[in-house]
């Protein structure tokens, strides 16, 4: 089969690092080729070089077996290459159709002519089951639909090579299934697809070939049919990896966190939490599954004292915490791993040792009346850095420069060092690579085994299923179901997450 893409000996250096080191990647036309590897392995850089966003420092690119020079996205688009970036490249206040035609607009009498594009797009939409409300502003569309806008954008430009960077990171299981159906359609039409991912089950289910990258190099290239997730994980990390969390069943102790009848109406007047009640006991992990934006963030913020609920009660070890501010809640025994580590977890322009005492900086061990105790802070940092394997092992490195996984380890090290009874962990492994995930999962299970109560909020169903002792599903601000164990199918969870299951049951009980 002829090659659609040949990247030959590509090298790309940034200031001090080599992102791509003499990389050769060949993709056969009409296939789905998975590109896997940990964060920072160089997958995205390689594909953005193909797309013309970066100029390689060495190497050659061939498209459909012809040598090409790609100096900008303009060139790659005219060569028939389209890319769906991990962070969507959309202009939120513009409508879907304006985003799709942007840069390839047709005009009539000096004015934009969207009529032809509308006709063409509705044909494409129905052919590939890519339904999109064309006249809606992108900022009002859900992420799944925004992704379709991105795919349409590429196809509208006649792309026959489509690169998708971590496309399922933001999707629900159902949306992922739909996406894969669309990708199969595109493949059937003869298009070539490169899929960047680190979810190995996706690789196994949809790709024809897999290339594995590690530290800027291709370390393996196999046919999907002849490999296994275990082998791929080992190639990615460079050592054997436990894909399953090892966890014994345990008898939970007394309730630590008790949430009762919690409701919240936000500033826009929307009810974001409706009568939420749950308990987390010592020695158990309660996982909250749900599509993002269904009240999980607000629930966590209420518990952490960041917002004050409209009604309801929250107790930690029997003490009411509603109305207390964040510092007071911490003092009652909370540890909080926030969902957005850059916004709330770290001060990225401070170094590791300073970040490791945030929120504890007023304690006598780190601070005298007048000044911080620098020696104690440094010792604390060195201890935690070793224990949690933070790289680089330099307590004075700025956290801005750390990889996502190491930033997350800094936060987890800090929160677990609080000696709190309750740990609320929101998206603890988002954007963290396999090695880091394994470590963070093990740490959380150890904390559970030592008798902590853990509330885990995650959009990653695998994570929920493998860590939780019990699972609650949130939809539309409500807890729609609490499962007493984690023996439940992903697809069934998905139906509760999207609200379809709940209505069925209600319908049945009414009928």
């Amino acid at each position, binding site marked *: 089969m002829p090659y659609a893409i040949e990247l030959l000996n590509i090298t790309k250096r940034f200031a001090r690092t080599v992102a791509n080191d003499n990389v050769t990647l060949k993709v056969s036309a009409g296939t789905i080729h998975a590109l896997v590897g940990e964060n920072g392995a160089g997958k995205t850089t390689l594909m953005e070089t193909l*797309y013309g966003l970066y100029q390689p420092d060495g190497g050659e690119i061939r498209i459909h077996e012809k040598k090409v020079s790609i100096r900008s996205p303009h060139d790659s688009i005219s060569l028939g290459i389209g*890319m769906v*970036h991990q962070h969507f490249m959309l*202009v939120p206040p513009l409508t879907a159709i304006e985003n799709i035609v942007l*840069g390839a607009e047709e005009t009539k009498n000096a004015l*934009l002519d969207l009529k032809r594009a509308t006709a063409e797009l509705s044909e494409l939409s129905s052919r590939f089951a890519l339904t999109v409300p064309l006249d809606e502003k992108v900022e009002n569309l859900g992420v799944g639909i925004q992704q379709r806008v991105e795919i349409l954008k590429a196809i509208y430009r006649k792309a026959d090579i489509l690169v998708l960077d971590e496309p399922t990171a933001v999707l629900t299981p159902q949306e992922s299934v739909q996406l894969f159906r669309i990708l199969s359609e595109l493949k059937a039409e003869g298009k070539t697809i490169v899929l960047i991912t680190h979810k190995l089950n996706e690789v196994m289910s949809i790709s024809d070939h897999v290339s594995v990258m590690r530290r800027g190099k291709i370390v393996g290239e196999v046919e999907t049919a002849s490999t296994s997730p275990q082998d791929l994980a080992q190639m990615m990390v460079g050592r054997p990896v436990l894909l399953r969390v090892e966890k014994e069943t345990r008898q939970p102790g007394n309730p630590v966190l008790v949430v009762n009848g919690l409701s919240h109406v936000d500033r826009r007047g929307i009810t974001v939490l409706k009568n939420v009640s749950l308990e987390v006991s010592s020695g158990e992990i309660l996982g909250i599954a749900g599509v993002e934006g269904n009240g999980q963030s607000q629930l966590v913020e209420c518990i952490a004292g960041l917002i004050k609920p409209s009604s309801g009660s929250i107790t930690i070890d029997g003490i009411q915490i509603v109305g207390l501010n964040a510092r007071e809640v911490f003092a009652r025994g909370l540890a909080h791993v926030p969902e957005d580590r850059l916004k709330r977890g770290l001060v990225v322009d401070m170094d590791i040792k300073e970040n490791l005492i945030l929120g504890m900086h007023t304690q006598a061990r780190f601070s005298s009346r007048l000044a911080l105790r620098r020696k104690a802070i440094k010792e604390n940092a060195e201890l935690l850095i070793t224990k949690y394997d933070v790289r680089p092992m330099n307590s004075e490195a700025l956290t801005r420069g750390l990889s996502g996984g190491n930033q997350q380890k800094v936060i987890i090290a800090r929160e677990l060092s609080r000696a709190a009874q309750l740990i609320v962990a929101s998206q603890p492994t988002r954007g963290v690579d396999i090695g880091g995930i394994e470590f963070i999962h093990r740490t959380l299970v150890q904390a559970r085994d030592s008798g902590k109560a853990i509330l885990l909020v995650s959009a990653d169903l695998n994570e929920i299923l493998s860590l939780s002792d019990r699972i609650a599903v949130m939809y539309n601000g409500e807890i729609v179901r609490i499962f007493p164990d984690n023996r439940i199918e992903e697809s069934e969870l998905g139906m509760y997450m999207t609200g379809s299951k709940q209505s069925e049951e209600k319908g049945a009980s009414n009928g």
Partner: protein
Amino acid sequence: MISQIFSLAFLAQTIRITVPYSLASLGGVYSERGGVVNIALEGIILNGAFCATVGTYYTGSPLFGVVCGIAGGLLTALIHAVVTIHVKADQIISGIAINLFAVGITKFVLEILFHSSSNSDRIPGLPHIHLGFIENQPDVARLLGNPLVLATILIVVASQFIIFKTRFGLRLRAVGENPEAADTVGISVVLYRYLGVLISGALAGLAGAWLAFDQHSFTDGMSAGRGYIALAAMIVGKWNPMGAAAACLLFGFAESLQIQLQGAGMPTQFIQMIPYVATIIVLAGFIGKAVAPGADGVPYEKEK
């Protein structure tokens, strides 16, 4: 008294004040829609006024003066564009520097050419179109027949179309909201940001020319904060050409009201508050939240 205040002369006064505000404010819309904050409008107006005066004085042709005013505005804006888009310097600092520079350079050249530190020699005004219906009020007729008044109205309406209905406008807005997205579909962020800033320079230069012809001379520091008021109007108008012009009209109205009332025996301190009180009431009561373009003020780094 009311009929005295709201006379044809009052209307003329309002228009006279509104025209330069509107032109500069539209300039702000083009620049900021493309993602470049342009507080240099103040200095651009001043340079435009000066160039228009000099051009007219030495050729005797007000039309050539207008061209000089626009050219002066363009050149000043070009400095802002190079500094903020190419060198990626802070846009506010660049704007302040240009404003200070404009005050200095105009005064310096004024001294050389006209041997005065305060004002130039007198220049003729723009020829006006004869309007039949109000010839009994020559001042008003002259103002309403001024080609720049008509041009301003046309520019406002045309800008509304250009920003929202043309390919250029779509791309300009994309570059100002999310330059990375524009870049990934092959749109040159640098080109469109330059165009936005240069158009703002031409319009603010034209605003300066208006001031010069209105006073028949250049006087030191004659922009007198109009660039900043224009920026405020742009925000009140939510970065929309029509909205910005409407806000300018409101400011112009409030200011002429203030001028009229100064002769009416009310305490001047109270009267001078009128334009600002009006602004606050409009901002708080009617406009709602004004959201700036997403990447307004943020230099674009291609390879991060």
